[in-house]
């Protein structure tokens, strides 16, 4: 698919030299006002409520602060104590555990769906619509619905397992199964999202490639591994990048399903940030942890962007 921006030369490139000469500047006061009138409605909120707080968070992370009494500058102390605290490692491990369960499930499921729903099929857009439905519902509703589906007592999943004589686990009430429950609910919600991204990718694959592969005698599996997967790699890349960014920030469904429990078994990074701020009055430490999280997300994303050369095929 072609992005029109790529085709269009940027309007009026600034002159290479003599940017200091004031005479060259055509911008009249009226034009400046016009630009400001169009730009300020977005620039003011973005500055006040995103960029400003971002810088402030960095400052707060070097202070001790309970949101009420004045801040006290303590240097790197928050970072030092976070890195020394074994709970920090645990909350990152729980978050990574969530991603490790969620991502393969949602990608393989979404890919299977995209492949199936890319075939000639009666009522295809209706079925796509059904699979996409959970995407538009809120995480809180999803978490609560799944708490009920996976309820150890009278939950429909354990009732159904009972018909086969299986004694269902305690799901979100059991430290060993709580994260599994969150992963199941999250995958159900996001399956349709991944499906739509991959379907859009599948539709850009040139059918001639399949014909050429057939002429070369490639069977269905070979065509899948040698044509579909490589040609789909930009979409796969996007799904993985987005899933990791969102996965590290997992919160809503954890808050509503387990609140980090039982026994801290699903305490993820953002739940810890929330608890530090609003439960333990340690806003400075929370800011430091949120910056650590941001740096981790940034590093993971940058590594993927660098690493994509090895496996993502554009074109």
């Amino acid at each position, binding site marked *: 698919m072609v992005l029109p921006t790529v085709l269009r030369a940027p309007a009026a490139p600034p002159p290479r030299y003599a940017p200091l000469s004031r005479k060259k500047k055509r911008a009249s006061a009226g034009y400046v006002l016009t630009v400001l009138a169009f730009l300020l409605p977005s620039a003011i909120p973005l500055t006040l409520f995103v960029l400003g707080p971002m810088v402030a968070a960095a400052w707060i992370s070097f202070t001790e602060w309970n949101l009420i009494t004045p801040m006290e500058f303590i240097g790197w102390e928050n970072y030092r104590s976070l890195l020394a605290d074994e709970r920090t490692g645990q909350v990152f491990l729980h978050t990574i555990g969530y991603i490790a369960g969620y991502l393969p499930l949602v990608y393989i499921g979404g890919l299977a769906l995209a492949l199936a729903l890319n075939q000639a099929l009666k009522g295809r857009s209706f079925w796509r619509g059904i699979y996409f439905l959970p995407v538009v519902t809120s995480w809180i509703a999803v978490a609560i619905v799944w708490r009920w589906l996976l309820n150890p007592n009278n939950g429909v999943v354990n009732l159904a397992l009972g018909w086969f004589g299986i004694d269902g686990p305690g799901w979100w009430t059991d430290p060993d199964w709580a994260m599994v429950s969150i992963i199941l609910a999250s995958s159900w919600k996001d399956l349709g999202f991944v499906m739509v991204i991959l379907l859009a990718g599948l539709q850009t694959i040139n059918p001639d490639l399949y014909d050429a592969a057939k002429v070369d005698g490639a069977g269905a599996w070979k065509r899948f591994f040698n044509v579909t997967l490589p040609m789909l790699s930009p979409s796969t890349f996007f799904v993985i990048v987005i899933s990791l960014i969102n996965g590290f920030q997992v919160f809503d469904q954890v808050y509503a399903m387990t609140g980090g429990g039982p026994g801290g078994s699903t305490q993820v990074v953002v739940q810890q940030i929330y608890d530090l701020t609003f439960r333990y009055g340690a806003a400075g430490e929370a800011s430091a942890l*949120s910056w650590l999280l941001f740096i981790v997300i940034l590093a993971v994303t940058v590594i993927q962007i660098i690493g994509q050369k090895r496996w993502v095929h554009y074109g």
Partner: protein
Amino acid sequence: MAKSPRTRPRSIVLHVVVIAGAIAMFFPFLWTFITSITPGAGFSIAPQLWPENPSFEAYQTLFTERPFGRVVANSIGLALVTTLAQLFTSATAAYAFSRLPFRGRGVVFAVYLATMMIPLQVLIVPLFAELKAFGLLDTYLGALLPTFASAFGIFLLRQAVNQVPRELDEAAKLDGAGHFRVFTQIIIPNIRPALATLTVFAFMSSWNAFLWPLVVLRSPELQTLPIALAGLQGQYTTAWDVVMAGSIVSILPMLALYIFAQKYIIQGVASSGIK
């Protein structure tokens, strides 16, 4: 695609698998609804696929014992204001980034896009402090202000404005139109599909927003659906019919929106993947 007899069984299997999967995907919604009309569903009563004495009393509980009427109105009001604000701030910014060249525009646009990368969690503490200083904690305005501009919306609309032929601007300018007239009379009518996509996305994300409203809106009468829903779960730990009725109240408007705007939602998601 020519249908040879050989592909028939394969096609039947495909249909069966897709339909079975769709039923499994839809089942949680159905079960939620069934539970909500099964009085006393929960610890002692398991809902049946076909409830014996269906009743809407759980919904009554929501709207009489709990302030759900107010909560629904809050959610609708906040979502409408957020949507209108984002349409305005995104369209104006998109016009500037597409049609108003100025020095440093590329850098400003890059900074705008970078704000998409910043996780909300990093902003929570300073935002909380900032709105506290403004005296806006526990007010609608406090919940609304940080949602007024969206980098995603600006990006989406800029793509659309770029696709409007410049000849249209030039023709209008020859007729003596300034930038404001070009914007309102040429650009806006020509980017309607993108505006529709942004409308749906802004409304949806406001309707489903959780972390920020949870932090800023503390009074029960100001809360939005996701917050009230999370609270409901704490209050009615065993009355699953009431909790599920709350879920249905929260889900239903989105399903309705989805049915009417499916095209725009799927386009929006799909286009976000093509970069």
